[in-house]
């Protein structure tokens, strides 16, 4: 399957310790910036009830679904306990010239 790097947003569009939503070609993604300025990207919807994770809270390496507090490790997509049990898909990220690119 071919993959491509997509320009998602400016690096400073996302606050430290926060997340933003990025929609592309009918899919939605969540892009994260941690406190130490690392960037990550995952599928945008919670695996429990398809809620946008970008509306949730980032705490360290955890993104919490805004609706039912399902938690995932935003670096690996790993589900961290009830009510979520299905992991999130993750995507490679790189920052170039102040832009965040994700490989999808």
């Amino acid at each position, binding site marked *: 399957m071919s993959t491509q790097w997509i320009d998602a947003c400016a690096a400073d569009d996302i606050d430290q310790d926060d997340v933003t939503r990025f929609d592309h070609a009918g899919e939605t993604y969540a892009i994260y910036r941690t406190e130490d300025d690392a960037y990550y990207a995952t599928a945008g919807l919670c695996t429990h009830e398809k809620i946008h994770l970008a*509306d949730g*809270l980032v705490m360290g390496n955890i993104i919490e679904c*805004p*609706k*039912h507090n399902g938690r995932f490790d935003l670096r690996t997509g790993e589900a961290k306990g009830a*009510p979520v049990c299905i992991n999130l898909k993750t995507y490679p990220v790189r920052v170039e010239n102040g832009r965040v690119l994700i490989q999808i």
Partner: protein
Amino acid sequence: MSMVIVGAGEAGVAAALRLREAGYTGALDVFGAEHHRPYERPPLSKAVLLEQNDASLPLIAAAERFEALNITYHPGVQVDQIDPARRSVRAGGVDFAYDALLLATGAQPRRLSLPGHEHVHYLRRFEDALALRQNMQPGARILIIGGGFIGLECAASARALGCEVSLVEAAPRILMRGVPEHLAQFIEARHRAEGVHFYIGTALERIETSADGLALILADGTLIAADLIVAGIGAVPETALAQAAGLRCQNGIVVDAQLRTSDPAIFAAGDCCAFPHPLYDNRMIRLEAWRNAQDQGRFVANAMLGEMADFAAVPWFWSDQYNLHLQIAGLAEGATQAVTRDLGEDARMMFHLSAEGRLLSAAGVGPIGKIAKDIRLAEMMIAHRAAPAAAALADPAVKLKGLL
């Protein structure tokens, strides 16, 4: 070693899973009063009513794991009796011995007693939702009694299905219990804009049948015609089994800070129990809430295994109506100061503080993206007994994350 759980709702299932997660390997029997696999109740007033195709049972995600985890599930088996002296329960004519027993029996809808009450539907089980769904045809006149979460969610679902909807609330306003008036007004306005007719502050007198269907007559003589009447007027904790076993009950099965009943080998969790809350002066409270059932289920499993921590999770509630999302963290009772945070036209948020300035509760309604992060942050502040400055809470330019 053997453990028995009575009840296969959120609390009972969460406890069973947690027991295995915590390394418990002995016998584990879960009794469910219903014939289904364990399922989530919140979608019954929302997604299940709205599904276009055949409604499917919203299973608790982890239920498939029962077999793999060697949890013995007994669907549709009523537990008839507890023998606390012998530490056993009787179910389906068989005795099951326990070292620790969990009662997660939940609650039942409170029933109306006015004349004609036999025509009223209630919503608790999957079959109740299917019956409502069958009657919620376009143009059908749906009358809802009770302006709480369930009544309002049913109203929103019925409007989405093209029904005519009336809602009767005998109290002076909707959402009297637990939702600030500032938010309740906003929610009511939205329902009115969607075409729901409200009858508020008038007592109900009787329900009559006619060739035209049903009619509810209010104390002031108002007659509201309907094809279907559904009531959501609160719930009554399921305590019969506990009472028969001699356990202390008062507005639920009374438990201590470790969720232990008056018998040290028997625990209770979820809608059925009344527990002391350390964040609220150890006041005895009982919650009918999805999150609390899960939190207490997980917590009580640890307690059954001997852990001595106190249950202190911040109460948390949510509702979905149309595209409005409501979240509340904490309890406002006892607050002396209310603070409004101005979120603009499409959302409302409010905080309640104690006389000492401690944050007791936070409530928000609007698009989920506008309220959820702040309610979550407020929840953490409540848990930490934080006393944030009222002016900071009121100012939408101040990020709550900075107040943690």
